[in-house]
């Protein structure tokens, strides 16, 4: 039996599951639905056991009807329930943009505060093993753009649990962005329920040479890059915003003022992306007198290809992140690129498709 303040290593996927289970225990109005949440694969394990424990009234699959199911979630939320609607890929949320943007985001406002929409929309980002064009998109910036929505993008098991609990308790629609390649990663996670609320970014590493903001799994890749950079004598400060909306820009501004170099590495495209927002937000706040040099990195400005040789060009990785950070920090030195073997991430070595 674990004591209430016990902490143990937990996988990201199990942290998600545990958060939902604890909240369902606490609050009977919480329910989970979406395609395949109740089959034996349980959304890669993230809904495992919930059906058995809470029954099919509170854990159920749906027809393939993302648009209407989102409306159903919104209506149930307005009526006082707390739905968690699950998409196994973020790409499929493009089918429910109308409900999310035209109704969920606007309900409280356009109806004069008479209703609220306590809704969590879980979505997973795929990567590699041929996920390709339509199973790999990080679309968070589209949701960040819209007032009335919140967006969480936890990059480790601890925050996965804490953000999920905060999202479920939030009275507003929260787009919850997970990453498939993070599911197997472990960190220490408190056993008791706890909330990681919006508004406070995390300093993952400390350094005075360059600020590196990572988003979603790019946090892990940035941390690996920071290790490589440290070996080369550059101290990178890696920041994880955790919540993208509302965004704790102040922490990033503070760091960037000190390092005078800002690299934002997104798990998405750059144009009008989260990286554009962070760069613009920092420089608007800090002004030219802060003398901050900035750079964005993200998906190549292309569709995601399936061939592994092409995919390697599509994503930032610890090697390209480290090289870019080096160039920002040491503009006058020779370019430096870590050796390819050193840049592979642990989870990339372990992982094998299909998924």
């Amino acid at each position: 039996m674990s004591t209430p303040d016990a902490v143990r290593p937990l996988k990201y996927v199990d942290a998600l599951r545990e958060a939902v289970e604890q909240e369902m225990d606490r609050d009977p109005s919480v329910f989970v639905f979406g395609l395949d949440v109740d089959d034996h694969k349980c959304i890669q394990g993230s809904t495992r056991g919930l059906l058995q424990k809470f029954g099919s009234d509170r854990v159920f699959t749906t027809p393939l009807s993302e648009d209407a199911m989102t409306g159903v979630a919104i209506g149930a939320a307005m009526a006082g329930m707390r739905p968690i609607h699950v998409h196994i890929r973020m790409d499929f949320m493009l089918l429910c943009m109308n409900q999310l943007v035209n109704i969920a985001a606007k309900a409280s406002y356009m109806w004069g505060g008479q209703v609220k929409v306590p809704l969590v929309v879980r979505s997973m980002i795929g990567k590699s093993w041929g996920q390709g064009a339509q199973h790999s998109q990080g679309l968070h910036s589209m949701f960040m753009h819209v007032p009335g929505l919140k967006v969480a993008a936890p990059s480790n098991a601890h925050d996965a649990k804490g953000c999920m609990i905060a999202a479920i308790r939030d009275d507003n629609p929260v787009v919850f962005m997970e990453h498939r390649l993070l599911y197997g990663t472990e960190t220490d996670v408190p056993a008791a329920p706890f909330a990681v609320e919006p508004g406070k970014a995390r300093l993952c590493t400390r350094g005075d040479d360059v600020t590196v903001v990572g988003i979603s799994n790019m946090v892990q890749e940035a941390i690996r890059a920071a290790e490589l950079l440290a070996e080369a004598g550059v101290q990178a400060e890696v920041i994880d915003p955790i919540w993208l909306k509302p965004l704790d820009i102040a922490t990033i501004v503070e760091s960037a003022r000190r390092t005078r170099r800002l690299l934002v590495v997104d798990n998405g495209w750059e144009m009008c992306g989260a990286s554009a927002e962070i760069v613009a937000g920092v420089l608007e706040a800090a002004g030219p007198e802060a003398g901050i040099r900035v750079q964005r990195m993200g998906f190549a400005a292309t569709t995601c290809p399936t061939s592994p040789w092409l995919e390697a060009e599509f994503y930032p990785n610890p090697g390209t992140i480290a090289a870019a950070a080096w160039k920002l920090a040491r503009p006058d030195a020779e370019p430096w690129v870590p050796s390819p073997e050193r840049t592979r991430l642990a989870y990339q070595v372990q992982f094998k498709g299909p998924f």
Partner: protein
Amino acid sequence: MTETSLSPADVSRLYRSLRRIRRFEEVTAEIYPSDRIKSPVHLAIGQEQVSAAICDVLGAGDWVGGSYRSHAMYLAKGGSMPAMMAEMFGKDTGCCRGKGGSMHVIDAAAGVMGSSAVVSTQIPVAAGYALAAKRARAGHVVAVFFGDGASEEGCFYETLNFAALHALPLLFVCENNGYAIHEPIARRRARPDEICSVAEALGVPAWRIDDGDVFAIRQTADEAVRRMRKGGGPALIEAKVYRWREHVGPNEDYDQGYRFADEVVPWKRTDQVERLAAMVEPALRTRIDAEVEAEIAEAVRFAEDSPIPQPKEVWSDVYA
């Protein structure tokens, strides 16, 4: 038109509901040219009977939802008239505090879940309310109002299937006025007469009322809702009606070429407001009419006298 077995009290209640809606919208149309209402208004004049009939069989704890054309539904379900008028005037006392206008009326206390201006979006939202109602097991039901055009959106079909699958207490109410803006249904639907068949094929029992008879609509709804309250699952009512005014705005538009005045003739002949007026005892009718006028005048006065929203209110209610 059918005979009715409703009591005189029932008939006069229905008459009051119809008359209130009709006059509220006529007064709205009269005010409109003065530009005090800076909001697109979609009037239901001529098709009030659907809201009046359906809401007559609903009660406290039941919900309704609808489209931009929702004054009738809102009033029939008991939404506050002054708050809706103030909303159209953009005042702080409006039902949305000036943030929704005519297209987004809501009165949560009265069970009006809010109307939406993107066609057919409230259909699945209503199913969400119905899911909550089912889980609450208190026998409450939800009715969602939409037009013939809305029945062409994918989420209408998706919701029919889901509602049937989960036996939700959801009444789909299709107000088929034969037009989506100016496009007749035959230009948009290969089988204009088969909306009910689609619902049935997806598992939702459906009824069509062709002549706009308020009693027939009420009778059908009454049976459907009774069944629903006992867990019988969703139903659909398609009521053929006719829109007398232009799609949006206060005027008639029979001179615009997309339809002709003779189309409205049979509908005016069977106008349900007039029909029921004739069924109500004259003294009572006079009293009802006077009360309705007074209520509307009071709503207009309230709207006019209400304060405008403070600039800072633009920032409120973005998040709950």
